[in-house]
């Protein structure tokens, strides 16, 4: 049985990763999950300097989902390289994808340049879709011209292949996918969270201090599948699919829609071993369906 997938020349032992921001750099979850068994560890977004994030409350539960407005709190790229990348050294079987965030093109580039010499970094995921920061983030991800320009700029500096992470908060995600491809992206990942809001009816005020937050969890999964399907039929670069994946069926569905690999996000919060449970379920499915190579199911539902 072959579970290996290749994205931009980088080989992953299996197509299961966790989604940026739900797993830190793996440290906290290494108590539950052997990180060496994952296709990749995708880190929390890293900026050029430490970011404090948003005020609390940052979390709200909604039906079959949640809203978050963390605001990309992170220690900055220096601490990240010295501490998080060093920690990840011990898990050689898993690839390392570093999620990069910034308020401006210059800030993205500063991080990309700093990571250029880090051999433990296999790929970069460029976050142009965070709905919880006012400047940068999603501002780059909602205009195709901006998507293409930032992709070009990052690609010119990056020493590792780049994945552009797209926002679902757009009229037509295919346009953004094509813009990323035109800018030279090696792959795209989608979807980031959908902008949502929750109001406390007793207090008659917003539940989140940020008023709005990114919605994730099983409730968004069908939207993610649709968008992955649309993008898979619009571009020729590989897609990493994510959005509400919590079971092996969700992961397989995403690959049938056209994803080469998948990321598990919110499910980690209520099932710390979700990634490995999904991998195991996917392998059982391959045996039952007599699928020798996982690559054979990618995008076969047309």
């Amino acid at each position, binding site marked *: 049985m072959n579970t290996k997938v290749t994205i931009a020349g980088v080989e992953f032992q299996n197509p299961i990763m966790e989604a940026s*921001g*739900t797993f830190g750099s793996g440290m906290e979850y290494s*108590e539950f999950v052997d990180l060496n068994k994952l296709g990749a560890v995708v880190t929390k977004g890293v900026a050029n300097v430490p970011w404090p994030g948003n005020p*609390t409350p*940052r979390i*709200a539960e909604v039906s079959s989902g*949640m809203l978050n407005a*963390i605001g990309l709190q992170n220690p900055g790229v220096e601490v990240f390289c010295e501490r998080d990348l060093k920690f990840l050294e011990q898990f050689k079987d898993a690839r390392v994808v570093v999620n990069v965030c910034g308020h401006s093109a210059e800030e993205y580039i500063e991080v990309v340049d700093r990571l250029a010499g880090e051999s433990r970094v296999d790929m970069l995921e460029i976050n142009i879709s965070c709905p919880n920061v006012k400047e940068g983030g999603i501002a780059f991800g909602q205009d195709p011209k901006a998507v293409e320009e930032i992709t070009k700029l990052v690609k010119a500096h990056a020493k590792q292949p780049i994945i552009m992470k797209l926002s679902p908060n757009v009229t037509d995600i295919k346009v953004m996918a094509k813009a990323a491809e035109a800018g030279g992206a090696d792959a795209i990942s989608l979807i980031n969270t959908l902008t949502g809001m929750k109001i406390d009816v007793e207090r008659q005020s917003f539940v989140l201090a940020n008023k709005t937050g990114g919605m994730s969890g099983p409730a968004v999964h069908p939207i993610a599948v649709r968008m992955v399907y649309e993008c898979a039929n619009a571009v020729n670069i590989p897609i990493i699919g994510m959005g509400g994946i919590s079971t092996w069926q969700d992961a397989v569905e995403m690959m049938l829609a056209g994803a080469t690999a998948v990321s598990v996000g919110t499910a980690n919060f209520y099932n*710390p071993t979700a990634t490995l449970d999904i991998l195991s379920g996917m392998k059982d499915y391959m045996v039952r369906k007599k699928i020798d190579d996982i690559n054979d199911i990618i995008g076969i539902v047309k």
Partner: protein
Amino acid sequence: MKVKEKAQVLEQMKLAEGVYSLKLKTTAAEYAVPGQFISIYSNNGSKLLPRPISICEIDKNAGTLRVVYRVVGEGTAEFSQLTAGDQVEVMGPLGNGFPLEGEKTVVVGGGIGVPPMLELAKQLSGSVTAVMGYRNDDMFLTEEFTDVAAELIIATDDGSVGVHGTVVDAMKENDLDADVIYACGPKPMLRGVAEYAAERGIKCYVSMEERMACGVGACLGCVCQSTEKDDHSHVNNKRVCKDGPVFLSTEVVL
């Protein structure tokens, strides 16, 4: 060591209006210390996130944990319907507990901050004064505190029992002195207790609360403002679930 497993419900009791006590058989009991919490998961699949609930009592021999919680929403309402023999998913123990220090201590609890102080009072050596605050005479756990503390002082918002006012009013009225003060309750109460301790030069630990998602320090959802740069992000944001929930009162902005 954290475990995530189906715990068995041994007992459910209503202690006061909206306040329930749940006794669980779980291997988490083996590793638990006072001040830690467990995450309890809803059996309703549309409610994804665990409810973090403080540990009220630990029985390592019997392998049981007791939690006392207030029904504040649909999740906790569901927990209150659990009965002996039911199973419920838990993860824990989570967070850091109260350091056991001092020979003369005061443990202070307000409202649903009362429960975690019980196991602490049991495990502290020396003389423990318990100061517990309630809204009115619909109180809970007072018998247990009478058994384990040298003295129990009660404060009620409406004056129906004990001191008419807050726990801080009660501490002032009794001019309490201690080596260490421990507190859990609403933020304004913690602020008052911390000020009381600071004025008298007493070391003070507070247990904080915030909305959580992962419960293990990964998502950065439950941060509280810290006076010094935190170890994780270096931005004065400590994680309540992982770095806390117990902090020195001087470590956090109350």
